[in-house]
């Protein structure tokens, strides 16, 4: 590590004010803080410092995403061989999946980082770390065979219109990764939905619908068993299929204190409750799907753990997080069941609640202020009584 520090210290003057490469200082900054924890301190205003900076936080989220990513890569291969009917070994599954998924990841990162560095240079601020996580989340919510230029266009749209327009990481009102998916969903529906896109290199004449699509079509007898859906051996977006792998990531997020347990738990509670309500109603086959199936189908778990907990676009207040999460779960199942045009209600539910989060926070804070005012008044009244 010492030699890296030496190299950086050696070339640092070149990038500081007056140096030869001053124009590239934010690029240099990005690499330096990526390698070493920055030693900058805040010197005015009140501030609370955590022991890890934003870049470290984001890296931990990427670690939490690894189980879902690795399982996703294997599952892409597994589904491919299942569709073609060829028996193949574990490593062949992984290899086929890797060949399908890796280009998506590369394209996402190249696009996102390129735009991010460009904006950082133009505006003279540091490169924002949020892009590291967005760049990993976007491939995980794509179908395995999505054309790469679409990934690139969606990433560019999400980074520019989801984040940079508002002023970069920390200012965005919507989750950029979900925005990328929503963009593709509405712009190129043929490649983002239906029963042809969920399996890598699908053979002609073979269709493979996700369990969600099957349920939406009223065909609930052919959806996989709850165990299969929990483990994740079903067609779907790259990283969303395995609830098990996602829960491993969630456990890691809990341990490191990065993901908000309040949000995750209340999303699941909201979804489960709505599922139960639909069971009571039971007007069509989809409504009779057992409530716990909703939690393991489609992108519900992935959205709950990795998308809804986005610290920027979620509610900030404690109570607000419960309300925010609960409504996400509720709306997700509601959209899924009642609107067959949008089988993936989770995406729309989270985006919608992202927009509502500041409103929730506002009322939570207002209620708190009112409660405290009432308490003060009651105390004053009591004190006056005593003195009389």
């Amino acid at each position, binding site marked *: 590590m010492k030699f890296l520090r030496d190299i950086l210290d050696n070339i640092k003057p070149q990038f500081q004010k007056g140096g030869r490469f001053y124009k590239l200082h934010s690029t240099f900054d990005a690499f330096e803080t990526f390698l070493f924890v920055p030693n900058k301190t805040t010197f005015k205003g009140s501030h609370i410092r955590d022991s890890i900076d934003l870049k470290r936080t984001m890296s931990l989220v990427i670690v939490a995403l690894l189980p879902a990513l690795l399982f996703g890569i294997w599952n892409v291969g597994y589904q491919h061989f299942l569709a073609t009917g060829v028996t193949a070994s574990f490593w062949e599954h992984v290899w086929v999946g890797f060949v399908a998924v890796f280009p998506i990841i590369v394209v996402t990162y190249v696009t996102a980082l390129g735009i991010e560095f460009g904006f950082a240079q133009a505006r003279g601020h540091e490169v924002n770390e949020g892009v590291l996580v967005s760049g990993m989340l976007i491939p995980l919510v794509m179908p395995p065979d999505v*054309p790469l*230029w*679409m990934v690139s266009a969606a990433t560019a749209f999400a980074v520019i*219109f989801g984040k940079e*327009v508002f002023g970069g990481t920390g200012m965005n009102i919507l989750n950029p990764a979900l925005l990328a998916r929503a*963009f593709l969903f*509405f*712009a*190129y*529906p*043929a*490649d983002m939905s239906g029963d042809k896109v969920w399996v890598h290199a699908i053979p002609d004449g073979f269709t493979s619908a996700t369990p969600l699509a099957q349920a939406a079509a009223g065909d609930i007898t052919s959806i996989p068993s709850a165990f299969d859906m929990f483990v994740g051996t079903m067609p779907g977006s790259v990283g969303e299929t395995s609830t098990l792998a996602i829960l491993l990531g969630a456990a890691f997020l809990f341990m490191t204190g990065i993901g908000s347990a309040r949000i995750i738990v209340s999303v699941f509670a909201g979804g489960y409750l709505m599922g139960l309500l639909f069971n009571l109603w039971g007007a069509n086959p989809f409504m009779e799907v057992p409530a716990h199936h909703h939690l393991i189908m489609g992108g519900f778990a992935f959205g709950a753990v990795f998308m809804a907990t986005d610290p920027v676009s979620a509610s900030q207040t404690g109570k607000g997080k419960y309300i925010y999460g609960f409504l996400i779960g509720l709306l997700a199942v509601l959209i899924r069941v009642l609107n067959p045009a949008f089988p993936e209600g989770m995406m729309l539910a989270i985006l919608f609640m992202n927009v509502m989060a500041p409103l929730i926070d506002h009322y939570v804070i207002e209620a708190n202020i009112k409660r405290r005012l009432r308490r003060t008044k009651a105390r004053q009244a009591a004190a006056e009584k005593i003195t009389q």
Partner: protein
Amino acid sequence: MDPMNEKEPLFSPKNVRLLKQPLVKDNPITVQVLGICSALAVTVKLEPSVVISLAVIVVMGFSNVMMSIIRNITPPRIRILVMLTIIAFMVVMVDQVLKAYMYDVSRQLSVFVGLIITNCIIMGRLEAFAIANKPWPSFLDGVGNAFGYGWILVVVGFFRELLGSGTIWDINVIETPWWNLYELGYQNNGLMILPPAALIVVGVIIWVHRSKHKELLEDN
């Protein structure tokens, strides 16, 4: 000669400013953020955008003039009613002309020609300018604002048609005798046909506009 009665030249610097100011610096859409609703509704393609822009230019120019002519005999208490009547009269005229000579476009625009009446820019200019100014400056003000509104609509329509339908003025530019981008895997962007896309394009125009004219930025 009494300076009050001195005849002002038709295109005095003041009048030219009336015409030019709304084009960029005081644009009704990008700066005042008025008339957004129609910018969403009619800009799926370039042709209706151009037609509606022309219609608004005619309606705004002449209703401003009419309001200005009768401004001194209109009782202030009923001025809004008078304005609405004038605008409605102009809109009906435009609608009839469109139906007679451009029936297809008129069908395509359907209710939106009639809805020009509700365009807040027109009412706003009548109330803010024509009611207190002479006919000629009022005409320039109306035409200037309508042009400011129109060119934004045309730009939005151009991009929405190009990206959403792959055509410009109904001429296919993606699949031509010389090249065919569809074969390379290109697809039209379905989002651009949906109304929110107009908001995004208008947003981009406002973004570019504000970064070019720093004086528009609020300090905070």
